[in-house]
């Protein structure tokens, strides 16, 4: 049996380092929002043969005075344009010019800033409600447990683990955003929520085992009992996460470029979720019961 609970301080330290890095990155650089969160336009076209130099394209669009225009190439013959949100007639002007090279318009989005800000607020609201909903559900699902910790503390321990799983991918994307301009949009929020879903699965499986063992071994002290429960479920946690990570890796390698960062966020989140359910959620229960014993 691996002594996970006894060495919990090491695992806490690892997590605290990651959380600290994430928080610092977030405070220093914030997040790079995509157009669905801050408004703006994105246009993707593909050229029939060879795409012209980006400078040349920029030159041909100069008279339209698109603000914050950034042009980048995608894939074989694709070109990506980003600029401030614009009206339909400007969009048509751009297409008219690009059409002289016979381009095909693959995607155009233009999102007003108010819609973007609203989506930000909605996303934050959704995450908070999910966190609270899950924690309350756990407090309720484990309501029959009262000794040595009452069930609401299981809810709080879950909340702590979930917070851990949110902050680490957010920190990573803050760093990616700063150094590589990786933007976060609706997909990122979806990834965070899925992460929460998986993480809570793992946590529930461990807690469920604690619940069962509490009934089975009444004489065992809480520290050994939790340690045994974690050990009994660790193979399941790892094989489930491993399966999901395999699936995600397949998506990451073979899926479209559009979803690459969505998948990355998921992989990091699910990895962190597995870690937190084994090394954070249950150890917190033990630390808490020790604290209560002392006072």
């Amino acid at each position, binding site marked *: 049996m691996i002594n996970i609970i006894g060495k919990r301080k090491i695992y806490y330290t690892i997590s605290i380092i990651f959380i600290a890095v994430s928080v610092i990155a977030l405070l220093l650089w914030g997040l790079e929002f995509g157009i669905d969160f801050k*408004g703006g336009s994105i246009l*993707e076209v*593909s050229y029939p043969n060879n795409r012209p130099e980006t400078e040349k394209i920029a030159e041909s669009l100069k008279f339209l005075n698109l603000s914050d225009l950034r042009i980048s190439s995608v894939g074989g013959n694709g070109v990506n344009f980003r600029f401030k949100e614009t009206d*339909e007639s400007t*969009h048509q002007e751009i297409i008219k010019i690009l059409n002289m090279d016979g381009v*095909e*318009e*693959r*995607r*155009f*989005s*233009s*999102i*007003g800033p108010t*819609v973007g800000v*609203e*989506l930000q607020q*909605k996303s934050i*609201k*959704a995450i908070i*409600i*999910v966190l609270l*909903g*899950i924690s309350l*559900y*756990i407090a309720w*699902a484990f309501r029959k447990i009262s000794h040595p910790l009452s069930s609401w503390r299981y809810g709080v321990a879950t909340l702590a683990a979930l917070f851990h799983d949110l902050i680490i991918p957010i920190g990573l994307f803050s760093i990616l955003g700063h150094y590589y301009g990786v933007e976060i949009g*609706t*997909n990122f*929020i*979806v990834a965070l*929520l*899925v992460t*929460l879903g*998986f993480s*809570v*699965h793992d946590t*529930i*499986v461990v807690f*469920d*085992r604690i*619940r*069962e063992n509490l009934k*089975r071994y009444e004489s065992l002290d809480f520290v050994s009992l939790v340690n045994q429960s974690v050990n009994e*479920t660790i*193979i*399941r946690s790892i*094989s*489930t996460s*491993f*399966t999901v990570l*395999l*699936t995600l890796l*397949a*998506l990451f390698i*073979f*899926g*479209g470029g559009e*979803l690459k960062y*969505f998948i990355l966020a998921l992989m990091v989140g699910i990895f962190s979720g597995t870690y937190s359910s084994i090394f954070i959620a249950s150890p917190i229960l033990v630390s808490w019961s020790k604290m209560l014993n002392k006072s």
Partner: protein
Amino acid sequence: MSSNYSPDKIFKLDAVKKTRIIVSAIFFIAIIAAFFIYPLAWDKVISKVNVISPVALPNFVKVPFKLGLDLAGGTRLVYLADVSNIAGQDSESAMSGLRDVIERRVNFFGVSEPVIEVEHSGSDWRLIVELAGIKDISQAIALIGETPFLEFKEQRDDAETQQILKEQKAGNENYLMQDPYFKATNLSGKYIKSAKVEFNQTTYQPEVSVQFDAEGAKMFEELTTRNVGKMIGIYLDGFQRSSPVVREPISGGSAVISGKFNIDEAKKLVEALNAGALPVPIKLISQDSVGASLGQDSLNKSITAGLIGFLTVVIFMIAFYRFPGVVAVVALVIYSVLVLALFKLVPVTLTLAGVAGFILSIGMAVDANILIFERMKEEFRVGKGLGSAINDGFARAWPSIRDSNISTLITTAVLYYFTTSVVKGFALTLSIGVVVSMFSAIFVTRSFLKFLPVNSLEKRPWLMGVKHSKQYD
């Protein structure tokens, strides 16, 4: 010490006979579902059978998957409605009027199942229009946003009409979209000052009389002078409503649109015309358009990714769990077939995020199986016979499967109610997946496990992925 919620108690499925019935039913449903997903397979078989069969068997019903904008190509338009001139409580009815008008215009485009929704957010009223599979997005935007949609057209002369009819018959594409009898004029709803419902003195039918503004009155006079003895076509949202014959030039700027409407329709038309055709002015604040080819690319990529993801799961499950792994794979295939059939049946609009939700739900379905097998192995390892190891393993795994899936359902419910349509698609597919995966854990995996050849497996523990089984009881 099994839980109070053990499905044994809920469904009372102890007897071997019942298991046998359930397993056959599962396979039967799965096969029907598979044909529902891929009806061509059925048709192929049937075409061969029909050669020798005395009764001709019908082809399988064909229902297509409903694809969202990002997979089928199309556009999502968000309009902000300016309701500042409308008193508070009337905003809602004005918006529903707007919805109707826009719906009429969109239908004119022949888009299948357009989605048109009114959204109230803070003090803003918005109209969301989703058009899937549309080719000419810019034309659609122009059509939706256009203010006056009442048009007056004049008759073409005979030579022109014959010419167009001839070309259309010959299939000349330049002429196909042209109306052979009427041609456009500059006079439109834009020049209308007011409109009201009247009743015809002789027929008692409702009519709509319109009063043009000064400029419109002049144009109308010119139009009628030019067309004495001919018809004038009056078109609303692209459809001809009436085509009165001009007897004499009309000055003073009033016209009557008669025929083919009941009193309600006449009233609606009047309201629409008075408000400048659209009940409230709208402004396009965001659009999200995906070309058909990009949609197709994304679709192909996600299908490939899904298949590869599925295969990796299959390989992992069999390598790690051996014989029960094979059982799990069969259960997963059935699970996937059922979920996909439900997507068609409901129908669920599949988007990229929705496909991601489905693939993740496969992960969660695998998890349920892994939980059961780990528990089973554990019970087996401590020396229980395989039969009771299966029963106990399932009973003990169940509470955690139930609790974790319910927490996922909480997440998806929140996602469904609090966020955008992209996320909604994801939430819907994931929640359907989770519900079906619980069903699959209870019925499919469990019934299959009861069918395992217990005796021969006990003699070959490596098939169970367990190294040492100490004793049998």
